[in-house]
């Protein structure tokens, strides 16, 4: 048993004998019939050589006679799988050739019935080279000319050529100058072998041997010398796709390699009103795996170090395009007949037609880099392939949106870095394609670079109305404002990215301080709305007694989901704080309203009621005298009483009804204003106050800590800080104020 290989190409002739070859001149003359040239072969020891006569502009041709060599059966190049012709050729003196535009070297195919030295009467030509475009080759002196015969001819056909009944095909060379040496002219045009088909290199297992890259390289470079893989100093140029296993294999295929090779998909060109691509790359430039139902395929590129989520891939392979604009390729590991698709430490550049996996059972992608690739789709079986510790850079191709990574509602994707350079100018790192209302985890999905305009964190691509809640964790930094909705403009996305804000307060002796007032707000210069430097404006309908407050602006996503909104009655020059328990759209909803009545013993700053301390009332709440429409702010709470700021208008709480968590005024729409601090309150017995922050970008904030009454007094503290992906953990040391006499 042994590995078997298929290239997708039929080697029609290795040019070791003259049997199936003939030569002639389309213009000028040949000096003599083509012959076998020994010790100068491409696919073996020999080749076929042809000399032109000493005539300027001779155009000489070596053709392989497919019809004769196949028992009078014509070749149908239109049949799917037959389309590409590949010919090893060598021009000894390229300087003799004409230029590309003038057909210096051309692939020719004929459908007329002539043979041997007879010039065909129906043929087509594709100009593939010329003295101005001769390229370096990895195989000394030889170059593999390729044309996908679906490509238009470089020049008008001669006669009624038909791709479906090809009799001969070969290579031609047109001279532009006359050779000036004496004696018979030497052979100048050589053919080293002819092939046709669709170039996909396939390694098929025998159920026992583990295949490696070396096996494929040896087959191409040494065994068959087919030119589909070229060794350029350790990097390999591919004129073909790579396929692991076969859908019809009769034994399992196992491929495993951790030698870290580099493969470059080669560009082949020809002339068609300019130098254009000679191949339909999308039909064969790929990396994929196939298996049979009873004999499956396992692919492992690279190896893994570390454990669990700290696993990293190393020594995988590298697949590059040689031309990001013109040479696309794709990868596909979605076959149901795979037992593993382990791609560790593999680098993909220019796979603009996308990369697909399908199952969590077989897809394990660790530490791969996808640069300028089309969409990476991990599939859905078992929530899709695992994608761990990978990097996506500048997604490009595959979709109009240049999507980077499909992120379905259920997935096995985490620890992915998304990096943009700004080019291409349209990028959508995440493709949220699931429809309907759902939540999706964004576990350590981090975005780097500048995102704005059409360079975005993602897109909601489902045409069905979708409401997506992205739950960011472990340092993820998606921003809801950086998602487009190309599928349905009415779709919405909310990003929950909770970070902890923590302030610890101590004195200069290191003793924690309880009941220190902590306050955090955005900087006054911040352009976000809803902070003291850029306040909300009151909407309509904010009527006294309401349990909500409505603003006119959309509420930024980083405004706390619960907290305190402070409303300014501009006409009075006063403000009233209200605690809210939820926010939706532009509406803040307060705690459940509380009502009661002073026992009759209250005064301007004291409200007495049995067990009022058990109610949901805290320091800082606005409290309204609903009997007389006056208000105050709670300063402290005891079991049976409240201390407040002086009741407005110098009134008394005695026997008055009160309400908490309701508006104390009817606020004037578009005049009165409001803001929400990011954190506020007293430190606990451990000297700590914590809160949550919905992170999207690093945010500079102002932090104030004060404890200037009620025991030892301290000097006020204020500083600028930054909330990062780690939140904010600030330790504050207060200095005793020896002058404050309160």
């Amino acid at each position: 048993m042994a590995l078997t290989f298929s290239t997708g190409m039929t080697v029609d002739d290795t040019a070791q004998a003259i049997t199936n070859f003939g030569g002639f001149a389309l213009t000028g003359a040949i000096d003599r019939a083509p012959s076998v040239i020994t010790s100068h072969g491409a696919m073996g020891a020999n080749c076929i050589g042809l000399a032109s006569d000493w005539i300027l502009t001779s155009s000489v041709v070596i053709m392989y006679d497919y019809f004769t060599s196949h028992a009078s059966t014509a070749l149908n190049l239109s049949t799917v799988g037959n389309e590409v012709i590949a010919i090893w050729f060598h021009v000894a003196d390229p300087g003799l050739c004409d230029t590309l535009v003038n057909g210096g070297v051309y692939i020719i195919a004929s459908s007329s019935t002539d043979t041997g030295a007879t010039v065909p009467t129906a043929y087509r030509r594709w100009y593939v080279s010329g003295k101005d475009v001769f390229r370096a080759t990895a195989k000394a002196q030889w170059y593999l000319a390729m044309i996908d015969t679906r490509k238009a001819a470089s020049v008008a056909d001669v006669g009624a050529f038909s791709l479906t009944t090809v009799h001969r095909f070969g290579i031609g060379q047109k001279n532009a100058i006359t050779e000036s040496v004496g004696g018979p002219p030497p052979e100048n045009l050589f053919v080293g072998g002819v092939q046709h088909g669709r170039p996909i290199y396939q390694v098929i297992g025998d159920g026992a041997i583990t295949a490696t890259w070396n096996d494929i390289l040896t087959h191409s470079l040494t065994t068959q010398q087919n030119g589909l893989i070229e060794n350029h100093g350790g990097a390999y140029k591919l004129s073909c796709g790579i396929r692991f296993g076969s859908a019809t294999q009769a034994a399992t295929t196992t491929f495993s390699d951790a030698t870290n090779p580099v493969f470059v998909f080669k560009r082949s060109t020809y002339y068609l009103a300019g130098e254009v691509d000679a191949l339909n790359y999308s039909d064969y430039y790929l990396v994929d795996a196939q298996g049979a139902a009873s004999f499956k395929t396992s692919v492992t590129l690279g190896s893994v170090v570390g454990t669990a989520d700290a696993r990293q891939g190393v020594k995988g392979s590298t697949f590059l395009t040689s031309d990001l604009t013109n040479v696309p390729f794709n990868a596909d590991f979605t076959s149901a007949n795979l037992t593993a698709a382990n791609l560790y430490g593999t680098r993909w550049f220019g796979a603009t037609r996308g990369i697909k996996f399908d199952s969590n059972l077989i897809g394990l992608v660790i530490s791969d880099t996808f640069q300028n690739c089309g969409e990476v789709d991990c599939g859905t079986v078992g929530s899709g392939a695992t994608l761990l510790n990978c990097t996506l850079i500048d997604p490009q191709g595959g979709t109009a949106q240049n999507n980077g990574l499909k992120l379905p509602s259920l997935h096995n994707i985490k620890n992915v870095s998304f990096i943009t350079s700004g080019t291409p100018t349209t990028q959508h790192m995440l493709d949220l394609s699931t429809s309907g209302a759902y939540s999706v985890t964004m576990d350590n999905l981090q975005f780097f670079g500048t995102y704005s305009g059409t360079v975005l964190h993602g897109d909601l691509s489902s045409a069905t109305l979708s409401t997506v809640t992205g739950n960011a964790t472990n340092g993820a930094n998606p921003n809801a404002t950086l998602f487009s909705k190309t599928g349905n403009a009415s779709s919405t996305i909310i990003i929950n990215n909770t970070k902890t804000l923590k302030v610890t307060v101590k004195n200069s002796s290191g003793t924690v301080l309880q009941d220190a007032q902590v306050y955090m707000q955005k900087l006054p210069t911040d352009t976000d709305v809803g902070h003291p430097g850029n306040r909300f404006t009151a909407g309509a309908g904010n009527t006294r007694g309401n349990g909500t407050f409505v603003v006119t602006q959309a509420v930024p996503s980083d405004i706390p989901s619960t907290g305190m909104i402070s409303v300014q009655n501009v006409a009075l020059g006063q403000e009233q704080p209200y605690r809210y328990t939820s926010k939706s759209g532009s509406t803040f909803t307060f705690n459940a309203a509380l009502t009661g009545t002073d026992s009759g013993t209250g005064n301007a700053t004291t409200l007495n009621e049995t067990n009022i301390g058990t109610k949901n009332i805290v320091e800082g709440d606005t409290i309204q005298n609903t009997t007389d429409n006056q208000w105050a702010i709670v300063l402290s709470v005891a079991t049976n009483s409240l201390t407040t700021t002086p009741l407005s208008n110098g009134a008394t709480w005695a026997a008055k009804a009160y309400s908490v968590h309701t508006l104390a005024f009817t606020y004037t729409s578009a005049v009165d204003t409001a803001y929400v601090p990011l954190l506020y309150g007293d430190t606990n017995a451990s000297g700590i106050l914590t809160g949550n922050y919905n992170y999207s970008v690093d945010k500079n904030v102002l932090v104030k800590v004060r404890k200037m009454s009620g025991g030892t007094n301290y000097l006020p503290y204020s500083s600028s800080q930054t909330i990062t992906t780690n939140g904010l953990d600030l330790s504050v040391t207060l200095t005793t104020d020896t002058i404050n006499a309160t």
Partner: protein
Amino acid sequence: MITQDFTIDFFNKKILYNPKGSGNSYTVNELYSYVQDRFDEPQNMRYDIPIEAESKTIYHLVNGWTIDEEGMKHLKGGTLVTN
């Protein structure tokens, strides 16, 4: 009481003497201490502190705060340096 004789206009950053108050005068330290007390109330945390103490007798109005003429007249026992 100083709490009734001096009022604080947070919006306009002004410390004002209440013309309907007791008419009493207070030391600058008493004013400083009263103001500090008011500014650690939760609803006032967003406002900048008006007064800083250089010593027990010398104080400075800071952060753009001002005090009205009547207020200055009703201070004693120290110096309040205004802007």
